[in-house]
């Protein structure tokens, strides 16, 4: 009796160890190294598209297809997001009911800072996106928050992105295990299959950039945040990062999360970080 139990226990623990060995691929048990991961991320795309310069990746599908590129260059002379940038600029300096403006909430009066977002707030222990910061600014000054998805929020972020055009993404992961965890969770979200169509973000943007999904040319994941917010012809209007994440979810037949939910902020943190060094190209126009 004793022998059987011991044997069973040994067998079970051997199985458990074996399962552990299979579940932990080499290197994953070590501490996460975002610097190395970002380098590997970039290398993957540079190798895949050797004719492109690093800064080309921030223009998504337009760097993947010559015909699209030509049309885009022409259209950029009179881009459809122009109206949003102007509206955003007007809103930015218009005082709240209490006399303050958005300039009072942000470093350098909000000019040329978009490339620093999202950042990890160590006091709160979470990722703060530009949109979240803008609504907090509003609430701190007695104003109602805006929808995270479009309209005013898109105009404000369009203006702020415009003032940062050309500046390289400069996302920081402070020496805080929670920041590293947010980065990790963002990475996990990016590679996790979801929705009835069983796609991960990576399915389209890592495995198939430059290829078509129906009539659309897919953008590479590298630099995919750099053009936000975007005027999408499909939407006939502007949309923020939140809008794009939610519509991507529903396009894979997954119920979208709420704008600015943890998962969305974390994946934005991850995607922005791995694009560090690549210039802000926002606001952008997309098909």
């Amino acid at each position, binding site marked *: 009796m004793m022998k059987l139990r011991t044997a069973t226990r040994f067998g079970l623990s051997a199985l458990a160890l074996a399962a552990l060995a299979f*579940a932990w*691929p080499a*290197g*994953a048990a070590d501490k996460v190294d975002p610097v190395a*991961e970002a380098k*590997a*991320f970039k290398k*993957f795309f540079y190798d895949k598209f050797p004719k492109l310069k690093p800064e080309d990746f921030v223009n998504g599908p337009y760097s993947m297809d010559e015909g699209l590129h030509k049309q885009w260059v022409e259209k950029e002379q009179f881009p459809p997001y122009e109206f949003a940038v102007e509206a955003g600029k007007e809103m930015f300096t218009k005082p709240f009911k209490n006399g303050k403006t958005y300039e009072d909430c942000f470093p350098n009066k909000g000019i040329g800072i978009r490339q620093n977002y999202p950042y990890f707030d160590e006091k709160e222990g979470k990722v703060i996106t530009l949109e979240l910061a803008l609504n907090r600014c509003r609430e701190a000054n007695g104003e109602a928050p805006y929808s995270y998805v479009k309209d005013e929020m898109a105009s404000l972020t369009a203006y702020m992105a415009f003032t940062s055009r050309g500046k390289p993404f400069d996302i920081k992961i402070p020496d805080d295990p929670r920041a590293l965890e947010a980065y990790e969770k963002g*990475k*996990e979200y990016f*590679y*996790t*299959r*979801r*929705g*009835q169509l*069983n796609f*991960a973000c*990576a*399915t389209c943007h*890592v*495995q198939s950039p430059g290829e078509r999904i129906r009539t659309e040319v897919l953008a590479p994941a590298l630099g995919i945040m750099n053009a936000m917010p975007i005027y999408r012809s499909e939407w006939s209007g502007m949309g923020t990062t939140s809008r794009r994440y939610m519509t991507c979810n*529903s396009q894979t*037949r*997954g*119920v979208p*999360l709420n704008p600015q939910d943890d*998962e969305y902020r974390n994946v934005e943190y991850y995607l922005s970080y791995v694009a560090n060094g690549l210039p802000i190209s926002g606001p952008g126009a997309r098909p």
Partner: protein
Amino acid sequence: MRMLPVLLAALLTTSCAFAANEADYKAAYAAAEVANSEAGKLRNQWTTTAAMLGAAKKAADAGDFDKAVAAAQEAEALAKASIYQATSEKTLWKEMEIR
């Protein structure tokens, strides 16, 4: 992941030979809702699950309980598949990771 098409195929080939009543529908619907709610806790509900639940309710409201039960059972299968997806992806996601 490989199990998903099998799961769905198995479901689509089953058929109800008996006439269902409202109680059958309510039980099937409740079971589907429980599964979908669990998928919600895993932050991984499918839009098609919700659509199928809606179709079940619509058929029940029209009095067609055979159709309602079939739709509710399909909704439950979809919800269970979404749970399976969420739990298996907890480890499988690493296979897609750029390294």
